[in-house]
């Protein structure tokens, strides 16, 4: 229950952090909030030889509006995301999802970018990144690159991030005023990892749904978008009948895992029920847009 030995380096800058990581020969780890990494280090599931602390790097804790995108820096903590006025106004679905994230004390420390790097398939931030077409800004001594959330999550607790790379920020879509949205999650206890959750955004134009996005989590190895359901709804009016069709298709399309907390069948049923609720909420929230 105590971490194995490591070298500790407090990074003074992004350059210093990636230099140190690069020097660790693939055995370095970044620590920001530490709310997932520290338990794994205490259990010695993770034993980095070098721990690079980015908490004192100036300028990484900003939330910024950039045109039709919002950028969240690597030190934006869950509490900041949850309380930020910009996010509440421009990405209400994210603002609402934050209410389900962990507990007060964990939200004080844990970061948005740290959570996507940890890539738990039942955590909110990876799924919201996917839903909001997130682009993840990555830097290493070898240079900079940007990955889409779709390319970033490759498996349960696995990402496309190389051992010498640091995520400096993520950019996500802001939603146009009037966009309908909904977030539904079920966990046995508040703040626990979700058994399943769904997030939806959609616009309403000429009486039909458009720009439909559906994100699911807790029902596979990674969070996932549901393009076949999004296509079914595109250009349709949301009625009881469409809801039934979408839910039926969803339940046959997903292959959730069974574990201690829930069986695959239960999760499949739950995902359908949450999606039905979220779809009707998002539809009712959407305001008719001018074309």
């Amino acid at each position, binding site marked *: 229950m105590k971490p194995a030995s490591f070298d*500790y380096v407090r990074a003074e800058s992004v350059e210093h952090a990636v230099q140190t990581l690069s020097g660790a020969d693939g055995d370095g780890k970044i620590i920001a909030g530490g*709310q997932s990494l*520290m338990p794994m280090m205490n259990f010695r599931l993770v034993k980095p030889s070098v721990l690079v602390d980015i908490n004192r790097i100036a300028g990484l804790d900003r939330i910024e509006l950039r045109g039709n995108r919002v950028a969240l820096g690597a030190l934006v903590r869950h*509490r900041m995301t949850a309380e930020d006025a910009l996010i509440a106004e421009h990405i209400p679905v994210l603002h609402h999802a934050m209410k389900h994230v962990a507990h*007060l004390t964990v939200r*004080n420390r844990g970061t948005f970018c740290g959570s996507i790097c940890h890539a738990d398939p039942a955590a909110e931030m990876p799924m919201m990144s996917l839903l909001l077409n997130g682009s993840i800004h990555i830097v290493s001594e070898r240079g900079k690159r940007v990955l889409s959330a779709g390319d970033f999550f490759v498996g349960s607790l696995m990402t496309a991030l190389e051992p010498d790379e640091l995520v400096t920020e993520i950019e996500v879509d802001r939603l146009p005023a009037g966009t309908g949205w909904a977030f539904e999650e079920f966990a046995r*206890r508040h*703040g626990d990892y979700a058994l399943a959750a769904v997030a939806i955004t959609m616009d309403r134009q000429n009486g039909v749904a458009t720009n439909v996005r559906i994100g699911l989590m807790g029902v596979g190895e990674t969070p996932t978008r549901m393009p076949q359901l999004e296509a079914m709804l595109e250009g349709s009016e949301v009625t009881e009948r469409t809801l039934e069709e979408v839910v039926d298709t969803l339940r046959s399309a997903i292959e959730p895992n069974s574990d201690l907390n829930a069986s695959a069948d239960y999760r499949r049923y739950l995902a359908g029920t949450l999606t039905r609720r979220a779809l009707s909420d998002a539809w009712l929230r959407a305001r008719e847009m001018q074309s």
Partner: protein
Amino acid sequence: MTGRIEITVSVNGLSYTRSAEPRMLLSDFLRHELGFTGTHVGCEHGVCGACTILLDGRSARSCLTLAAQVDGASIETVEGLGSVENLGRVQQAFRDHHGLQCGFCTPGFLMTITDMLRHHPLESEAEIREALSGNICRCTGYEHICNAVRELAKERGALK
């Protein structure tokens, strides 16, 4: 660099300097190096909340924080809330409402509640219960703890 590193930290308003291994948890640093044994160690992986302290004014799990990370920071522990002879307000409310039995989880609850009272509106019962949900008590149950917080929130009034 796996050697010891020097850490200067303020705990309950007094500055301390010690050296520690990089891997030393803040919970162990407070207890073993500085003698603040009021901070209890339960699960050591961030689930139980017994080791909650305030780090620069906000609650944090000291078992998920390294001592090396708090160099230059300001820490508050349960010892800073009051003493046996002179209980702090949150401690007194726990006593009045029977908010503890064995007392093992109590320091963590007291520190979380201190953060709640300083920073959170606490306007509804649901908000109070959600804010307390990261701390686990295995004997009292939570009813009396909620009663204590409700009284403290009412006494404080609206958040400034």
